[in-house]
């Protein structure tokens, strides 16, 4: 279907945790073009010294309301500008971009593993999956979106590094403790977490889809800035660079070179 560019209109933009905001944007062309959970949009900061779009995963799509929900962390200048947006403000958006999670298989027991700002795209995924959904989420300190997952019927486990909420530790600790039935695993979060999960899944012979992150410039597949290493038997080195934005961001964990 391809990506669209449009001026979205902010419906709401609320802080839901420390430095974490939830924004609903009315963007009909983009909302109606989302094909898979795990795709992302680019938000363009208004101030002219911030040149590049910020790629942000789609947390939820409502095709009836024609809205996209993003849950984002304020990490710098660009996202700081987004946090100031008010209802009815306009923001330029492009998307949807990328290959998201593949839910076309007939798996019934789904494990979703999220870490930090990797959690939001798993929400739309959990809504679309058929079968039993178990969600294991890791946060540094303060969890968010838990009720949203529960609302859609998922069984949710939470781990925090500080131990303030859920169990103290990380998502792998929970997976090792609990006996969760899994046909397919899906994950988004920091690379060390994805790498550890991939190893765990390989040991257990569970297929895992991982959503990767790289620094992007254009966010639309042009600049080749955001490449990642994917196994490629046709290449002499056994791998080749793929664009995280449009070849990914979701890859099979077994296809990724995890050396870095």
């Amino acid at each position: 279907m391809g990506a669209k560019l449009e001026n979205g209109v902010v419906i709401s933009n609320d802080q839901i945790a420390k430095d974490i905001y939830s924004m609903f944007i009315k963007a009909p062309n983009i909302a109606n073009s989302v094909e898979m959970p795990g795709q992302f949009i680019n938000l363009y900061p208004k101030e002219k010294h911030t040149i590049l779009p910020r790629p942000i995963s789609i947390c939820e799509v409502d095709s009836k309301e024609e809205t996209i929900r993003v849950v984002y962390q304020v990490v710098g200048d660009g996202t700081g500008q987004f946090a100031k947006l008010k209802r009815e403000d306009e923001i330029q958006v492009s998307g949807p971009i990328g290959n998201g999670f593949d839910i076309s298989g007939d798996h019934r027991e789904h494990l979703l593993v999220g870490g930090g700002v990797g959690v939001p795209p798993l929400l739309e995924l959990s809504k679309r999956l058929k079968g039993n959904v178990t969600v294991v989420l890791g946060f540094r300190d303060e969890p968010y979106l838990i009720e949203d997952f529960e609302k859609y019927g998922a069984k949710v486990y939470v781990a925090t590094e500080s131990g303030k909420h859920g169990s103290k530790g990380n998502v792998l600790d929970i997976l090792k403790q609990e006996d969760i039935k899994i046909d397919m695993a899906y994950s988004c979060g920091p690379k060390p977490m994805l790498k550890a999960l991939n190893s765990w899944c390989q040991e257990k012979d569970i297929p895992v889809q991982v959503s990767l992150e790289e620094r992007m410039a254009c966010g639309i597949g042009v600049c080749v800035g955001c490449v990642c290493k994917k196994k490629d038997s046709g290449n002499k080195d056994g791998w080749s660079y793929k664009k995280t934005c449009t070849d990914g961001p979701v890859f099979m964990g077994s296809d990724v070179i995890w050396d870095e």
Partner: protein
Amino acid sequence: MNNKLDLSVDIAGVTLKNPITTASGTFAPREFAQFMDLSELGGVIVKGIANVPWEGNPTPRVAETYGGMLNAVGLQNPGVDYFIEHDLPYLEKSGTKIIVNIAGRTIEDYCEVVEKLADTNVDLLELNISCPNVKEGGIGFGTSPEMAAKVTREVKAHSRQPLIVKLSPNVTDIVEIAQAVAEAGADGLSLINTLVGMKIDVNSKKAVLANKIGGFSGPAIKPVAVRMVYQVAQAVDLPIIGLGGIMTGEDAAEFILAGADAISVGTASFANPRACIDIKEELINYMNKHGFKTIKEIQDAFKG
């Protein structure tokens, strides 16, 4: 209003319907076609193509800076054979002029690419002797007048299409390089390529780019680019494609006043995927406002 204007420009015997082109490295045809009609452009300058596929540099390859960005992609490209088979047929149907940026590590590499393109419908060649992100070739050729002249002469001898040479700003005297490649037979010039830059994360105390240094582009570099286009246009009688930080139609007009015949839009297309079209419309507005009917009239209006 538009029909009274003639936006067309001549670059080395090739007529572009308007002066707007896409800067190499910031353009991919299918991706941009999602957001605009490529036939509205004067020409497209495609990403650097080498004789064989290049892998490029490790990541992170890009970083934003105040009013600009750094990149150290390292000319990752699928090679000329892939380009001819997969991208060229698409570009031929796009209704715009095709300009191919040529990358190489050696003079022989460049010559192999232009020889393979000789039998194609590519309209113009742009010789990249100024990429700051590859050690051999790239900037190695573009920073000495003797080397720049040598590679221009040899590649020109193997080319069928007119040869534009893209100049590096990372030199003591860009006019000297421009004169050297003009004498060596270049049919046109494009300038500027990126400035060499660097960004350090003060918290991690590490260079942000894996390559440490990279090419600096975006609106922050525009005054340097305008100055260099002006100096080169004064000294060399060749068509010039001006680029470096063009974000608006008025920026485009500024380059034309400085002596450019056409312009390229690069980093602006990341800030707005429709930037080329917006810039074209703004340039038309500028021409109407100032009563210009042709691009040449803008050029001639510079008052010094």
